[in-house]
């Protein structure tokens, strides 16, 4: 780990903090960054709001914008870290958090909850969709692992193939559910495209409870992930229990993905591109890459969400937006890198 690493991470953290403050001030009701800081600081201390600040600001900041912004940041960070872990473990820079079919499982669960709602057989919708999505994601993970289990080394080919098979079956299932939903299929499609509309502090807490411990666990194993890039056999002779680390981190990254998906719907791109892009810039050392991915993913998704919320005349699904902005940007970087190598 180079001596520049702490500086890079501090800069990214600072950038994220500034982005959060600026984003909180943006929207239909513009609030100056200084006022945002004053209100949040007052709330944190439990003090009253200083005179001269619009009395509706505290509500807008604390109950409407901040939870949504933080949820977007944590989900973005979680997806990017999960993506980095999947890429490192599967030794495949094209892997993403959805490679093992976790997103399809979540989508199937959510669609099922929504269609049950449409057919009038259900518990309150708000509660059931994330729960169903989470159960769907975890069930998928169990099935994929069971399929891959006979391969003692859990090789990346076996895992990816198992994920692809299960995801294919699930998307057929989702198709069937959409068919059942008939005219109200829009509800399902909209959920699948992902959104942070109406996120509350409970969503923030829920994602934080999974994503932060997950991040710490991956940081703990970051060095082992570097060694595992040499291949399982060599890693084993260097003292890494590669099978154990693989299992722990795959479950950890899948759990982070599952919770993110169940809260926000399926947001593509962040988990694939952020680790990829940061690896191009910072190099492959996971001890720097993984924390950098957290900040990078958080900044990207927060920015995208702020654009749909505050700039665009109507809210675009965030998954669509991330791919529309990030895709061409990635093409540009990728092309430049390819040309630079010659």
């Amino acid at each position: 780990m180079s001596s520049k690493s702490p500086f890079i991470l501090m800069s990214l953290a600072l950038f994220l903090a500034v982005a959060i403050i600026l984003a909180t001030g943006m929207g239909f009701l513009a609030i100056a960054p200084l006022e945002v800081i004053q209100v949040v600081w007052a709330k944190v201390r439990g003090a009253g709001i200083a005179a001269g600040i619009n009395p509706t600001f505290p509500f807008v900041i604390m109950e409407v914008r901040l939870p949504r912004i933080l949820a977007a940041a944590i989900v973005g960070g979680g997806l990017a870290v999960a993506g980095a872990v999947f890429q490192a473990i599967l030794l495949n820079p094209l892997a993403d958090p959805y490679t093992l079919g976790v997103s399809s499982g979540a989508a199937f669960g959510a669609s099922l909850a929504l269609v049950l709602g449409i057919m009038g057989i259900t518990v309150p919708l708000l509660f059931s969709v994330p729960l169903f999505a989470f159960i769907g994601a975890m069930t998928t993970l169990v099935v994929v692992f069971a399929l891959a289990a006979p391969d003692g080394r859990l090789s990346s080919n076996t895992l990816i193939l198992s994920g692809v098979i299960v995801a294919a079956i699930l998307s057929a299932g989702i198709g069937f559910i959409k068919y059942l939903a008939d005219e109200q299929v829009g509800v399902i499609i909209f959920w699948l495209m992902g959104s942070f509309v109406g996120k509350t502090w409970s969503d923030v807490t829920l994602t934080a409870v999974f994503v932060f411990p997950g991040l710490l666990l991956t940081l703990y194993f970051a060095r082992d992930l570097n060694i595992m890039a040499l291949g399982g056999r060599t890693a084993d002779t260097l003292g890494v229990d590669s099978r154990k680390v693989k299992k722990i981190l795959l479950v950890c990254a899948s759990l982070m993905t599952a919770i993110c998906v169940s809260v926000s719907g399926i947001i593509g791109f962040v988990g694939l591109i952020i680790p990829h892009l940061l690896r191009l810039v910072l190099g492959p050392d996971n001890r720097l890459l993984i924390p950098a991915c957290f900040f990078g993913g958080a900044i990207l998704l927060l920015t995208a969400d702020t654009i749909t919320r505050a700039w665009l005349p109507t809210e675009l699904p965030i998954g669509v937006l991330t791919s529309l902005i990030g895709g061409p940007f990635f093409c540009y970087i990728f092309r430049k890198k390819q040309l630079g190598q010659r």
Partner: protein
Amino acid sequence: MAVAKNNIHTDLLFAISKGCFAYRTNNVLLDIDLDLVPGQFYGLIGPNGSGKTTLLDLLTATRPLQSGQIMFQGKALADYAKKELAVKIALVPQQFAMGFDFTVSDLVLMGRYPYIPRFSNPSQRDLDLVDEAMHVMQIHTLRHRLITDLSGGEKQRVVVARALAQDTEVLVLDEATSNLDIHHTIEIMHVIRKLVRDQGRTVIAAIHDLNLAAAFCDQVIVLKEGRIFTTGPVGEALTADLITEVFQVQAEVQAATLNHSPRIHYTLS
């Protein structure tokens, strides 16, 4: 057994008794009895599918034995912690695919992993050993290059340097030179040979090229169909009859002279 007879009073490095391993249909090893002493260059030879890689996996404890026992320095191999073994046995694999662009020196430094505590930086000694390994393998000038940009031969030298930096008593090579041109093959074999001669390390190398084995090894271990066919010093064990029987080719062995190691010629029937 020849090896044990010659060195009956020496402490054994490895002692395998009644070792069996079966994985699906191939990679089978049956009733392996094998004693290895320190300070020797062992060549492991045998046809494809005779179980060479599996035997190396057992010795490096990357696969568990299914029955029987392997003792390493007087203690059951299975009782060692992975980290304990990592400072005693290093592996140079045959194939090396690296999708991530670490620099050459980063990669060689990975050999020091078992010595560097988690969340710590490498010590001066770690860096010195990495330097030395890169010099020995003549990749010092490539140190800042990305591993993904190197040629096959350069990559393999990096992998050997990584194992040298691990600084272990035992070095296990799984056809480590079979993707290299003859120049680099001989160069690597000379380096390995020197480790055995000058530093008393033990090398166990699976080798396809019989002449290479004859030129550099002290002892050969011959595998056929998952069993040990024979073991012994190169000059005694590598006979024309043995090669014919194990590899199904007509062979002729030119005995070693003062200036030449034994030479083997073979033709298909």
